[in-house]
């Protein structure tokens, strides 16, 4: 019974997050651009294909997560719909998890997987050579998208205002990426800790380096693999705990 209520709530919230026609339009544009990119550039490794296709897609996904996912949470709070959600006869923990899945996980999976799939059709013979590396690269981009989404909805829960959430989320996204760029620019060599930190801030770069480099000194350390997944886990847990224990609409 409780599971049915939870799936009903998930379906209700998803209908707001991924409501057409914006979703159709967005899927159409990112798929079209990915297919064109896959056609006009030569690729001979699955890692470079995934990297070139998903890097621009990640920006679009982050924008969607900030403007539709996180701002949607703020809107739920300001429109007092959140109070209705919280009055559902299910635990607050379940509601928090449902909102996390609906606002972050599902849009991230959709927007990362679809262009990957479309480019995979175009370059099918290449993908068949190393499907595991292609999937691994997709997962690494998905983890990065989940990280952005987790921070954005945490911001939404604290800011409680649609406009502030959008601005702060985008500010976070650009600051985070510019800090990574500055770190890599000022680092003395590609093996320095500063450069490694800059690379580790983008999980997909760490995975890409580990899959492509044959130089032992350039292989990522364990902490580089853990940085973004741990930050994602922490921010997701913070969102779920605040919403389920301390949140007052």
């Amino acid at each position, binding site marked *: 019974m409780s599971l049915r209520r939870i799936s009903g709530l998930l379906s209700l919230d998803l209908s707001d997050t991924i409501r057409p026609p914006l*979703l159709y339009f967005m*899927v159409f544009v990112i*798929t079209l651009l990915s*297919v064109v990119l896959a056609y*006009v*550039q030569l*690729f001979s490794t699955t890692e470079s294909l995934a990297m070139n296709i998903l890097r621009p897609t990640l920006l679009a996904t982050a924008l969607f997560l900030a403007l539709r996912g996180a701002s949607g949470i703020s809107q739920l709070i300001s429109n007092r719909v959140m109070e209705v959600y919280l009055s559902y006869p299910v635990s607050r923990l379940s509601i928090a998890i449902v909102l996390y899945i609906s606002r972050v996980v599902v849009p991230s999976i959709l927007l990362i997987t679809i262009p990957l799939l479309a480019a995979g059709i175009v*370059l099918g*013979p290449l993908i068949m050579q190393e499907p595991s590396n292609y999937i691994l690269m997709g997962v690494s981009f998905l983890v990065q998208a989940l990280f952005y989404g987790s921070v954005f909805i945490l911001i939404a829960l604290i800011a409680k205002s649609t406009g502030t959430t959008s601005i702060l989320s985008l500010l976070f996204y650009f600051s985070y990426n510019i800090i990574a760029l500055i770190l890599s620019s000022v680092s003395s060599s590609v093996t320095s800790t500063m450069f490694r930190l800059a690379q580790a801030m983008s999980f997909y770069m760490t995975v890409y380096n580990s899959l492509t*480099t044959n130089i032992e000194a350039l292989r990522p350390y364990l902490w580089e693999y853990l940085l973004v997944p741990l930050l994602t886990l922490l921010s997701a847990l913070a969102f779920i705990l605040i919403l389920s224990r301390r949140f007052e609409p």
Partner: protein
Amino acid sequence: MDKKRLLGGLMASIGLALLIGALIGSIIGVKTSLSFSGEDYLGNNKALIISLYSSTSEGTAVVEISNASQVFYISNVTGDPRSLVKALTAFNINATQSEYKYDMRLGLVYGTSKVEANSMVLSALPSLSKVLKFNIKEASPENGVFIIRENMTSGEALLVFALGQTVSYNVEYNVSNTYRLPYSYVYAISVAVIVVGILVSAPWKKTNPSP
């Protein structure tokens, strides 16, 4: 939320994007070969570096050099040749003039650099192999023409050092595999996805059996 309608709409959007993308791709397409040639006056204490870097493609490179006194080359080294040329400054081999191009449709960075150094240093390039951790090989001429033929995989670079007063070169690069599904297959898949998407999202009404 009408899940069937959502799924159908998504499938139709993906199919349409795939179809239009394939059409655009068939118009623009990729390049599968490149050739460029030139002649450079170098004078004393200078060398010409011809670089090819297959950033995302794989293929066969053939570099022909004539009128050169000596030719060395580094092959199958990973990394951008522009950075590798810069790294040579540690040995007082300084680039004075560089010209590089990136061809996205070919997945190749190519170009030339003129470098200046003591002629002793330039002639002794192969002895720097251990210090540079690259295997610098010396090419031998055939009828006065140095020919270097290398298979390049994605991410690999080829650097050819030509020493001489006036050096002529001819470079060819042929892509070995484009790994693409034929356009007709992609058109068929995209049309099938669109049709399935429309069928899934169509509001099928159950008709009552006539009494």
